[in-house]
């Protein structure tokens, strides 16, 4: 071999080999980096601490901060100066949830595809073209920079960045290594992205286009019967509202007249037609009326209703089950601030929890705060015809970077109404409170420091979207509830109908541009904060909310047609109205309650349908016996819930599918579940129980018999003849996914108690949403609190605290909270790690 070849051959082979293994291949990270045992997949992220005590210095700190992490990974933070608390929270969030935070920010900024690839392009387009990023950034541009909450955000930002700055690539969480990118520097407005992200989760909901299809196909009378706009809620959140709100509130101006108890079905459809495409694809029409809005429970009893004489609060927000979960638990102390509860990574304050004086927790309001308007764009796409006037749109062209591909160019259009989107060659402008609200960043700073109901409600004045029902208790034994957020004043037609901007009948007065943080995008503006539904020490002695309609009849504002069915609210009322006084244990038991008031209504109907029957098969007879012996509790190990639940799902589909199938094969939106149950209870001979495709005229009883037999057969086919094997938990199972949807990085499937209507909510077959945490607080002396998080504190898969609370969560157990005023008050044996942050 000649000399040159002797050197060239290994040199080329080595260079080629090094080149190949340092390159990402087919979406995989470079092998040289990933399989390096010192820096790659085997190197734990910086959040996996193995040292019991460590220190860090940062010039942004004014005093020292001591952080004691307990056995669950909950940080007990003691700062010499209150202004340093947000720094510590930012540091901790970054340490435990860096990838989660990065994903949220990238989602709202439309930069997911940059690191994930083109699969994330639809998400990036959605967030950018629907104005989330712009709205989040505008909110911070106009923020009052002198407000201490703004300074807290600056400190929080410094805290996050101080953690990121100390990382080497070897310290990155595993997800960064898999996707082969580095954490981004944290920006102050990232916290605003989080708020818009949550607003999208909780307040981005509209049935308008589904309604529009219905309106074209069905007579107004039918729609009036099955989609009632105004109805009496049996258990509104504020049953006594009109005892407290002055009459003047009901009709303060003629302009409010047209929103009082209107019936949209008597109105003309929009003048300009068109086959309106749905703008959202995450649910189909048939379920739109009962779409998976993320619900929640909260309730509280005042001193007079409490067994201990102290007011007690329960709060369990229902969110999608993810690992890591949204919540990060903290215990924060500094001069003037002592607060405990759940934070959202990307934001420094406690969102739900308690301080020395009061406790609070939210549920989702479910107001309709998203409306679509059809507009005409000219051929250039730069001008819109609105109200007969040409308006130049604000258009920005942007590139979305895509991993492994050329960037995609998109245009983002804003009209004075809101963002402009196009679907199936129809252009719409949308109005959403999330685009115009911007004060949320300061709300929880003030709430964390509130001492009484007056402070608390003052803090909520800046709250916009997603509107929430905030429950409240304090040390004085008081109890209250405030539904806070932007509630647009609008007609039912605007709320439900897809509105045409060029139709004079639906014209609205000129409004300022959406980018000026206006409050009058809706023609009549918003309900003043003081007039929003609220209650303080109501005569019942307790307050509760479970996403149901907040107000009783005669409320003057139309704010949605379709709230969550009232059954969870009814159950809370049932439990809290009991003769005996309520204890902490009662509150916990209620959060874990799996008794269904709907099953209690429907099961006798099933039994009654077979009461006079002879010749039912032995399987059906056994199934009926099982139901007869059932106490309507949805336990995973029981058979009766499986029999009932399978029937109920088939019943719902069986009744409506026959009537709501369009000629083109598409399914219309079904009536809400509460309507079907009302028909069952009150109109067993209703024509809706008839199958129009068969000659005989069926009634409720006929259909129940037929569908029950089918559902029992289905269970037998699936699980065999032995009925003891038909346990509910065989198919009703909890699933929690990691954001990257990687197999085995989530949790489940695991048998799960509960159903849609139980307080311990667990809808569907694959249970993917439910209580995201459970908190019960008694404002005594000392304060007693119990909590359990879904998952754990850490966002790092493989960390001991990634899902260490899941077993307790599933088993209905709680951890007693250590709300320690001083580090010395914490039992030493419970402390796993100490971090000291110094200036």
């Amino acid at each position, binding site marked *: 071999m000649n*000399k040159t070849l*002797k*050197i060239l*051959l*290994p*040199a080329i*082979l*080595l260079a080629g*080999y*090094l080149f190949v*293994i*340092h390159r990402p291949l087919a979406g995989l990270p470079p*092998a*040289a*980096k990933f*399989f*390096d*045992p*010192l*820096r*790659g*997949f*085997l*190197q*734990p992220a910086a959040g*996996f601490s*193995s040292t019991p005590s460590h220190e860090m210095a940062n010039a942004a700190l004014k005093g020292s901060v001591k952080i004691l992490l307990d056995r669950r990974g909950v940080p007990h933070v003691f700062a010499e100066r209150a202004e340093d608390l947000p720094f510590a929270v930012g540091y901790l969030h970054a340490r435990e949830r860096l990838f989660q935070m990065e994903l949220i920010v990238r989602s709202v900024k439309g930069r997911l595809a940059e690191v994930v690839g083109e699969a994330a392009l639809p998400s990036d387009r959605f967030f950018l073209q629907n104005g989330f990023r712009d709205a989040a950034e505008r909110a911070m541009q106009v923020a009052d920079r002198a407000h201490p909450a703004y300074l807290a955000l600056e400190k929080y930002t410094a805290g996050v960045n101080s953690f990121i700055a100390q990382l080497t690539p070897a310290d990155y969480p*595993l997800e960064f290594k*898999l996707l082969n990118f580095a954490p981004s520097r944290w920006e102050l407005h990232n916290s605003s992205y989080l708020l818009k992200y949550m607003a999208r989760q909780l307040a981005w909901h509209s049935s308008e286009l589904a309604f529009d299809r219905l309106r074209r196909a069905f007579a107004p009378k039918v729609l009036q019967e099955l989609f009632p706009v105004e109805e009496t809620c049996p258990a509104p959140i504020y049953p006594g509202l009109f005892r407290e709100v002055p009459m003047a509130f009901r009709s303060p101006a003629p302009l409010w007249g047209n929103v009082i108890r209107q019936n949209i079905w008597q109105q003309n459809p929009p003048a300009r037609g068109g086959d309106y495409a749905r703008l959202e694809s995450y649910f189909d029409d048939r379920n739109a009326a009962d779409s998976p809005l993320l619900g929640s429970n909260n309730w509280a009893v005042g001193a007079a209703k409490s067994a201990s004489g102290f007011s007690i609060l329960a709060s369990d927000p229902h969110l999608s089950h993810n690992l890591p979960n949204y919540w990060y638990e903290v215990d924060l102390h500094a001069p003037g601030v002592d607060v405990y509860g759940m934070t959202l990574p990307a934001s420094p304050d406690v969102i739900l929890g308690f301080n020395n004086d009061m406790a609070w927790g939210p549920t989702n309001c479910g107001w309709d705060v998203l409306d679509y308007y059809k507009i005409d764009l000219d051929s250039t796409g730069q001008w819109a015809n609105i109200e007969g006037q040409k308006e130049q749109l604000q258009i920005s062209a942007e590139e979305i970077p895509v991993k492994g591909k050329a960037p995609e160019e998109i245009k983002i259009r804003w009209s004075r109404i809101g963002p402009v989107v196009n679907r199936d060659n129809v252009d719409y402008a949308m109005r959403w409170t999330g685009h115009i609200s911007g004060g949320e960043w300061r709300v929880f700073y003030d709430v964390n420091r509130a001492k009484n109901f007056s402070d608390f409600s003052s803090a909520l004045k800046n709250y916009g979207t997603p509107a929430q029902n905030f429950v409240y208790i304090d040390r004085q034994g008081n109890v209250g509830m405030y539904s806070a957020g932007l509630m647009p004043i609008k007609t039912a037609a605007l709320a439900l109908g897809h509105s045409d901007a060029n139709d004079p009948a639906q014209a609205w007065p000129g409004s300022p541009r959406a980018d000026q943080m206006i409050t009058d995008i809706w023609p009549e503006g918003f309900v003043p904060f003081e007039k929003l539904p609220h209650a303080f020490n109501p005569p019942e002695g307790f307050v509760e909310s479970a996403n149901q309609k907040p107000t009783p009849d005669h409320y003057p504002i139309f704010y949605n047609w379709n709230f969550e069915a009232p059954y969870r609210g009814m159950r809370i009322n049932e439990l809290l109205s009991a003769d005996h006084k309520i204890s902490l244990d009662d509150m916990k038991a209620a959060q874990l309650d799996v008794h269904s008031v709907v099953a209690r209504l429907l099961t006798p109907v099933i039994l009654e349908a077979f009461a006079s029957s002879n010749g039912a098969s032995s399987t059906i007879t056994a199934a009926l016996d099982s139901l007869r012996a059932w106490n309507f509790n949805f336990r995973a190990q029981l058979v009766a819930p499986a029999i009932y639940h399978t029937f109920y799902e088939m019943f719902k589909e069986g009744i409506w599918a026959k009537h709501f199938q369009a000629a083109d094969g598409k399914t219309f939106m079904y009536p809400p579940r509460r309507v079907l149950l009302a028909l069952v209870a009150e109109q067993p001979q209703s024509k809706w129980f008839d199958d129009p495709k068969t000659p005989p005229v069926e009634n409720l009883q006929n259909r129940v018999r037929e569908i029950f037999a089918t559902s029992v057969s289905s269970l037998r086919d699936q699980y065999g003849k032995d009925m003891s094997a038909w346990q509910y938990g065989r198919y009703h199972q909890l699933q929690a996914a990691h954001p990257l949807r*990687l*197999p*085995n*990085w989530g949790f489940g499937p695991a048998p799960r108690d509960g159903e849609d209507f139980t307080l311990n909510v667990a809808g569907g077959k694959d249970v993917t949403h439910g209580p995201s945490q459970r908190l019960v607080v008694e404002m005594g002396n000392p304060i007693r609190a119990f909590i359990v998080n879904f998952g754990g504190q850490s966002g790092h*898969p*493989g*960390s001991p605290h990634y899902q260490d609370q899941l077993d307790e969560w599933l088993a209905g157990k709680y951890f007693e909270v250590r709300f320690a005023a001083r580090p010395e008050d914490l039992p030493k044996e419970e402390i796993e790690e100490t971090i000291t942050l110094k200036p």
Partner: protein
Amino acid sequence: MRNAQQWLLAILFIVLGGMLFGVAGLALAGIITGWFSNSRKRGFSMAGLVAAVFWGVVGVAKVLSGQSQPLLSLTASLLKFTGLQAWLLILGSALLAFLAGGLGGWLGGSLRQVKN
């Protein structure tokens, strides 16, 4: 004795190279090892073996120490490896190191031979 010195030097360079610069460091250390071994074949086998053993031992030690065990399982689950199959990842890591060190050793040995 000369052999033992060569092995010790190889271990020293490769451990240092790997710790400081990862795979590229292993390759660089392999070149030095090959140079001292004065043989391309010996350089390839010596540097490759030491690099593979070094990374294999580090991988096994990290997993056995506890904190990296779940990380191994999670990564293995992506490839649908179960149980003992997860250790194939450590083996793969060692193989990667073997080739980097070995090719470096080959090049270093060749350079020395050509110089001589």
